[in-house]
């Protein structure tokens, strides 16, 4: 009997926190139009979230492009199909690796800083002070960060894929000596703008919403203590990463299962 009631209590607890998060998300969406009017706040957040993540995204994209090209070359050279290297690198980056790895890096680089910033604001009672002055912290503090994250994420994922393909070009064509014409023309013949590139962008927008919303929620609901902020920051990375990976599977199944 004790076991059953514990299970019931746990279930209710999970449902309550899910509902809480859902209401938070709806409030956040409701606050975004007001934040669009104060666009200078959004610009500052795009700078903090997007521009400052650029270096790690570009470096990782380049590295992923390098190693993909090297590994694919060793696999393809046995079949004499090294010209398809560009195509494989392109499809894997544009469809999967670009959005997913960029989102994981985004959660680690930008998500944590959002959670820590808002958590410390809360710990320093700045959020409560704003409410005292009848300023809605959701539209003044959270919404500009949300828009900044949702705008930055697709741009970062696109740049990740683009620099990865350039990295593969450097390794495959310039270093190994795969034919340059084939490298680009097979890619152009087989990669579709809407189906492959477009769906990749849609994925990255979804991941941007997930990562930013999770980071903001964890920061906003943190316990106002140093341990609480540390705990919330960890949870941001764990929850964002797992949600991105799970959501990626669902989106891939929806987008690429047919045909």
């Amino acid at each position: 009997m004790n076991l059953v009631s514990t299970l019931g209590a746990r279930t209710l607890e999970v449902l309550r926190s899910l509902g809480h998060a859902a209401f938070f998300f709806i409030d956040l969406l409701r606050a975004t139009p007001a934040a669009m009017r104060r666009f200078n706040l959004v610009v500052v957040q795009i700078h903090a979230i997007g521009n400052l993540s650029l270096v790690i995204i570009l470096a990782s994209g380049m590295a992923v492009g390098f190693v993909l090209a090297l590994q694919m070359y060793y696999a393809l050279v046995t079949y004499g199909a090294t010209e398809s290297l560009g195509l494989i690198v392109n499809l894997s980056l544009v469809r999967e690796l670009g959005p997913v790895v960029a989102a994981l890096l985004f959660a680690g680089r930008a998500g944590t800083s959002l959670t820590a910033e808002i958590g410390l604001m809360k710990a320093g009672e700045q959020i409560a002070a704003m409410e005292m002055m009848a300023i809605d912290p959701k539209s003044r503090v959270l919404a500009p960060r949300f828009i900044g994250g949702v705008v930055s994420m697709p741009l970062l994922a696109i740049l990740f894929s683009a620099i990865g393909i350039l990295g593969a070009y450097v390794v495959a064509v310039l270093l190994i000596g795969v034919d340059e014409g084939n490298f680009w023309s097979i890619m152009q013949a087989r990669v579709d703008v809407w189906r492959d590139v477009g769906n990749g962008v849609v994925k990255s927008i979804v991941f941007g919403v997930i990562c930013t919303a999770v980071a903001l929620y964890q920061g906003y609901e943190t316990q106002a203590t140093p341990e609480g902020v540390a705990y919330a920051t960890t949870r941001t990375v764990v929850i964002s990463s797992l949600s991105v990976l799970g959501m990626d599977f669902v989106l891939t199944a929806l987008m690429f299962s047919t045909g």
Partner: protein
Amino acid sequence: MTKRGIETLVGLFVLLGMAGLVFLSLKAANLGSFGNRDGYVVTARFDNIGGLKPRSPVRSAGVTVGRVTSIVLDGKTFQGVVTMELDRSVQFPRDSSAKILTSGLLGDQYVGIEPGGDEKNLAAGEVITQTQSAVVLENLIGQFLFSKAAEGGSGGGAGK
């Protein structure tokens, strides 16, 4: 940092992202090659389309002149009806023939158009009547075995 400086950096970031998207669309995908130019649609009926898929290329003399837009089965004749969109700048005579070919040994299948000698050209919506189906490896092997067996049978008969 000044407000102006931040705005410039954000502008650069957005421009860089746009440039990345343009690069992905034009250099690394098919937007630049074919697809957004307007073309004209012709259909062809094949007994067997093999591994042809929508978006497979249509080639003439090895040059890509169009794409397959859809493939359906005709319920009455049980033939595969392949609809393709050809580049408007390329016109073929009316009696041109269509074949389903394979690029290389293991490559993709595509529709090859061989121009005929008719004075009139194929117009939009017309049907290519002369077609040659895809080569199905199993049928080919079957024919080969059959002819070998027939050869062996007649050879054995002559030995008696």
